[in-house]
């Protein structure tokens, strides 16, 4: 059992608070991704878990053991570093076996574990070579093998794929996911790449300015962002946001208007509007969740095409609705030209309603 519990951890560098009162739990054998833009504190949080930086306050426990003040070597975890941090003067074999040697394992056990780890990552033929004449991908495999050879219950990964080229990254992504699922280690994986986060993680924790914004399964984070930041950070293209005014009728029913056109919302909108006490809302909607038609249909809003980007599997349109610029994805055969007038229909169940004051999603 290696559950990681992080309780109210704060870590500052001078005046800059890198991790601000973060509490989260990584379940046993779970693959948790820490996702966020650079400077959001995700790497600092990971290093605090590793013990490479001591938390200013708060408490960290691994498998029920309080490790807050333990040095990294005694936390019984292993790590893959962003720069790989392979020891350049050692052979691959010595690199992979380093942790075991430091923990005083006997030669035979080390050799066995090294061979196993090398086999897992298909680098058996590299074992006697030195890192200096190896490619980035090979070094990356050595770094992962070194981490896995420890057979630690917790594996930390700090942007391990960021130094690889795009194709290799795609390949390693799937391989890493399979490997970590096979060995069943509790994994904390830091990345700024949302595709990596969504595709690999059991859960994704989205961070910004040292705080966790949302922690959920990948599809939930994508479909139902907790706030405007998560919606705009995740997804390519990011979620569209349309400013709407709320017309509260005498009978208590609310209507959302963009210009003079109404966006049809679910019936419960009025309750949330009343609770938030606001007459303005932001509508969030993903590019693939709008219906585009050439002809006018019931409840549709007029839009003007500005840019058409054919992307192969889809055409990405940039359209203007009122004052808001939206990205809309269509079937590649959909006929659209710049300056063309189109009609957009918003399915109520796909809309996320955001209070502009708090930027939180209050409904949907």
């Amino acid at each position, binding site marked *: 059992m290696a559950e990681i519990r992080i309780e109210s951890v704060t870590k500052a560098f001078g005046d800059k608070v890198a991790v601000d009162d973060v509490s989260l739990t990584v379940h046993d054998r779970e693959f948790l991704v820490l996702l966020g833009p650079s400077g959001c504190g995700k790497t600092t949080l990971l290093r605090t878990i*590793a*013990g*490479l930086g001591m938390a200013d306050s708060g408490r960290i426990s691994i498998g029920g053991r309080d490790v807050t003040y333990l*040095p*990294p*070597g*005694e936390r019984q*975890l*292993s*790590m893959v*570093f*962003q*720069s790989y*941090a*392979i*020891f*350049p*003067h*050692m052979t691959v074999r010595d690199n992979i076996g*380093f*942790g075991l040697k*430091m*923990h005083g394992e006997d030669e035979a056990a080390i050799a066995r574990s090294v061979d196993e780890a090398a086999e897992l990552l298909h680098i058996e033929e590299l074992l006697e070579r*030195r*890192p*200096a*004449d190896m490619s980035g991908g090979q070094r990356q495999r050595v770094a992962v093998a*070194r981490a896995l050879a*420890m057979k630690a219950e917790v594996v930390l990964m700090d942007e391990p794929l960021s130094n690889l080229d795009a194709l290799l990254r795609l390949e390693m992504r799937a391989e890493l996911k399979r490997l970590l699922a096979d060995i069943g280690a509790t994994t904390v994986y830091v990345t700024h790449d949302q595709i990596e986060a969504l595709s690999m993680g059991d859960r994704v924790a989205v961070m910004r300015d040292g705080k966790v914004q949302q922690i959920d399964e990948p599809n939930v984070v994508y479909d139902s962002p907790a706030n405007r930041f998560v919606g705009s950070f995740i997804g390519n293209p990011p979620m569209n946001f349309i400013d709407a005014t709320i017309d509260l009728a005498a009978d208590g029913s609310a209507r959302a208007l963009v210009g003079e056109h109404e966006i049809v919302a679910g019936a419960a909108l009025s309750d949330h509007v009343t609770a938030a006490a606001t007459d303005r809302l932001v509508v969030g909607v993903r590019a693939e969740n709008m219906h585009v038609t050439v002809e006018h249909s019931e409840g549709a809003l007029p839009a003007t095409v500005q840019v058409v980007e054919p992307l192969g599997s889809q055409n990405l349109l940039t359209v203007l609705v009122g004052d808001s610029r939206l990205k809309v994805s269509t079937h590649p055969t959909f006929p659209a030209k710049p300056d063309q007038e189109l009609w957009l229909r918003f399915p109520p169940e796909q809309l996320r309603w955001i209070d502009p004051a708090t930027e939180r999603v209050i409904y949907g």
Partner: protein
Amino acid sequence: MKSRRRSLVPYFLIAPALLYLAAFFAYPMFQGLLLAVYDDEATLPLLDGPTVDGAEVGRLSQGSGITISDRQGNRLADADVVDNDEFATGLLTEQWFQVSGEGIEGDEVSGWMPESRLRVRDEAADGTVLGGTIRPRLGQSGDPSTALRAEPNESAAEIGRIGERVAVTVDETAVLEVWFQVVDAETGLEGWAPSRFVEVFSDDETGRIDRGTAGEFTTKFIRKMVDDRKFSSAWRTTLMLIGMILPLQFVLAMAMALVIDARLRFGSGFLYVFALPMGMSDLAVGILFFSIFSGNGLLNSFLEAIGVIDAQKLFLTADTQGWILFAIVLAELWRATSIVMVILVSGLQAIPRETLEAAELFGASYWQRVRHIVLPLLKPSIQVALILRTILAFQVFAVVIALSGGDVVTVLANETFRQYFSLRNNNVASAYAVFILLLSIASAVFYLRAVRAQEEVRPS
């Protein structure tokens, strides 16, 4: 395949540097080192007659024993006498005077005679001889009068005679250089040579070739160096100092570098303190440590103050070589450890943080990290520092002079200095310099080879 066009600009840029190197560095150094193996006074050519125009009949090497079979004086040009220093040194000359006075037959005679026949009685302010009297021939039978000759030369025609104690005036003075006809004691080779190259023994008949005019390669200066009674003590002491200082120095420098690299609070303060001795000249450090160890020095004062000794103990005397060596080691450690430290610190800072963090994370203790990560990755820096320090250690000088006066304890650089300045023996001094150079090259090559395996290890 088309070859890549090379830019000529770098070659133009490097040309002045190469010229500078050749003119002001390589050439003088070559000339200096040449002295060790080249004797430019090795042989003296013998001529077939007592003139500089004579044909060479053979050569005698410096030091050859000879007998003198004949002598002759050659008049020197005035310019040579006055201006030429080289002519003046060791020049065996004879002055001849052209005198006029009353001859033995009562007539007025005038002619040349050698200085040995004149008692000078009248000199001008500048020393020019103006007149005198003819010396008497004491205790000699035969003609007591003196011959006057047409030329300032024994073989010139006699043109008159003049009696004893006759007053004469000196009309002209000539300087003659004496030439010897010499016979080599071993080979019997006979020929003429100017007297200044010949050392004449007291019997006035035998002598040896003092120095030659033609050079040749020789090992005699090297032999002279090796045979010098101080040579073996000099190189032993130099190597012993290296053997004692370097290991201690590297341990200390490594510790200092690790302290600085640990980024402690006030870490930069440590750097300044550690680097302070780099700002002091080695002679100043030598004098500093002299003032500690001398009779009235700090050490004695301290020991007296805490009551360990009652009277001053003399540390730096001819009988306390051990103490002198101890003081030298201490001074050198204090003085030159910081340069090693600076090199090691720069090497430490080139080791990526994440590499050390990875080692820590995988369970390596501090000492394990130093042993398994830091020291191997620091090898190139250690190599540079070792080469630099060893070469500098072969040159250790001022500290030794300051603490031992360069006599009780001597080192190679000190012997070089002593041979050159005290003994005026340029060639042997040069041989010492060559010896130091060879030792430095050998140690550099040794270190480079010993740590060669390192090259494939460097992070790319």
